[in-house]
């Protein structure tokens, strides 16, 4: 698959402060997660891709087109749902979405039709003739999503789409994003600091920290490659858990102790779990809990944060 977004030494400065630092990489996913702690540069990156901030150095390409040279053309292909409140309060829902669709280039009649469709799609069909200013927070988020997709963009930027939503509204928003992703008509970039949102929607993730790319990874591939490991919780006399871990390692397993009897064990295919029980019995160690696990997005995120921290000498 051709890259959706390419970074070519992209750097953005606000005065003397470097907000995005020499970003390099490619994103090819259908649904791309933009992760990072608050202030890591996620929203700045989206705004730069939209042409709101000029790069100080380097550039980026969307669908192979330079964001500087083809800014106007690209904005026609992109739908944008900002993080903060963004609406025109004295317009009705349908008029608001129609207005935005017309600004994206749809003829008036088609824009009206698409506005109705988009509002029904996001679940605001029944309130589409109400003024947007009277909508609840969740409804405003959905209205923002409707205006972002009404003109049929090829790429949609969702900046913190679940911000301020209650659990049912959040589920509805996540379900909508998954539906948009699965329909396969457009690529989605979700910026969020909530790992769960990204985990549930995205197949690729870019992790930012302090304006640097901490990691770019294909979540699906990462999970496939991740070896399954066992998470054990043991109870033993002093020092026995250490000898248990040594014995497990001698058996040919990778083992890591985390204190208080907790350990992670990577079991080669040739070794069965029964062997662990036998060793435990020999050393009078109780195995109180045993779970199969794979690295979660949280693990990937924390690993990336740790790596960048170590690289910067801040951790």
């Amino acid at each position: 698959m051709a890259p959706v977004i390419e970074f070519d030494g992209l750097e953005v400065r606000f005065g003397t402060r470097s907000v995005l630092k020499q970003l390099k990489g490619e994103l090819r996913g259908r649904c791309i997660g933009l992760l990072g702690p608050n202030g890591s540069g996620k929203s700045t990156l989206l705004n730069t891709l939209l042409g709101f901030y000029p790069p100080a150095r380097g550039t980026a390409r969307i669908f192979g087109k330079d964001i500087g040279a083809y800014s106007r053309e690209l904005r026609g292909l992109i739908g944008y749902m900002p993080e903060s409140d963004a609406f025109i309060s004295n317009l009705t829902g349908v008029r608001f979405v129609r207005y935005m669709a017309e600004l994206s280039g749809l003829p008036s009649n088609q824009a009206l039709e698409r506005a109705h469709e988009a509002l029904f799609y996001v679940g605001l069909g029944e309130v589409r003739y109400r003024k947007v200013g009277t909508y609840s927070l969740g409804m405003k988020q959905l209205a923002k999503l409707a205006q972002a997709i009404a003109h049929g963009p090829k790429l949609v930027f969702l900046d913190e789409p679940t911000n301020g939503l209650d659990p049912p509204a959040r589920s509805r928003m996540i379900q909508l994003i998954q539906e948009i992703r699965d329909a396969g008509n457009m690529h989605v970039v979700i910026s969020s600091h909530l790992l769960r949102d990204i985990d549930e929607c995205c197949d690729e993730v870019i992790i930012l920290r302090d304006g640097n790319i901490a990691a770019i990874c294909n979540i699906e591939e990462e999970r496939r490659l991740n070896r399954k490991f066992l998470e054990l919780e043991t109870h033993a006399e002093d020092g026995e858990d250490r000898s248990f871990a040594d014995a497990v390692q001698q058996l040919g397993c990778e083992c890591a102790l985390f204190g208080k009897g907790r350990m992670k064990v990577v079991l080669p295919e040739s070794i069965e779990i029964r062997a662990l029980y036998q060793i435990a019995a020999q050393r009078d160690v109780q195995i109180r809990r045993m779970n199969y696990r794979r690295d979660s997005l949280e693990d990937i995120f924390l690993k990336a944060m740790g790596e960048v921290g170590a690289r910067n000498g801040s951790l």
Partner: protein
Amino acid sequence: MAVYKRSYKPYEGSTTSDRRRFLVLTRYGFSGLFDSRIFTGAFVLSFIPFLVAVAMLYFAHSASLRALLQMPGPGPNTAQINNYFFLAFLGAHSWISFLLITWQGPQLIAADLANNALPLILGRPISRTEYVLGKFLVIATLVSVITWIPVLIIFFLQAGLEGNGWLWSHLWLGGAILLASWMWIAIVGLVALAASAWLKWRVAASAVMLAFFFVGPAFGAAVNLTLGTNWGHMFDVLYAVKLIWVGLFRVPLSTAQGLDMVGIPLWAAWLTVAATCGLSLLLLNRRLKAREVVRG
């Protein structure tokens, strides 16, 4: 009622011309203004001077009507349909347009800024220049309909009724009407947009606009009084506009002196107008950004 299936379809239809897309902003701007019935009523009432002027014109040219009303006149030209008449008529319509724009103009941008809709608009294939142009056209069209269009209609009516080459000998007057009106449109439009861009609250923006036009003269008068000069008039945009209009409509110097319209040279009046427009554009440029940059 139409039933819409809850599924997402990509859009594969045609798109509108890229160059004319900013007119969408103008169209929605107009519909926003005329959503208010009071504004629509006031707009309709603003044509009363036009009707009065048409009646005056007819009266001036109709000897039979004057005879019927037993108001004998020396001739068809005695009602003084001349440069003074057009200047007064344009002045009256300009004031009406000023009041209408002060009332509703500031909502054009303020409504977009109030709830942060600017990133949504500028995130589409619309540049900041096109955004300002689209909004400015709302004011320009509205003020045109109230100012130079009715005045030119009267001008051509007079030319038709007068005949005998009146149009050719007074063609300069048509040019003066157009130039004076567009200068007024530029000032009122840009100041309204600048006030609208800096104050999200419409009422406050209207107040600032009024203050700009009426505090300036007071400040200018204070400067004149304190320093014993006339250059304080440069702070008075309305004075500068009047001065330029007096020149454009070829009002004789003696009359202008009687109206205290010789305080500053004409170039200084043009400079005041240019500075007002330039300052407004500068303010718009500083304010109308999709995202604020916090420098550090």
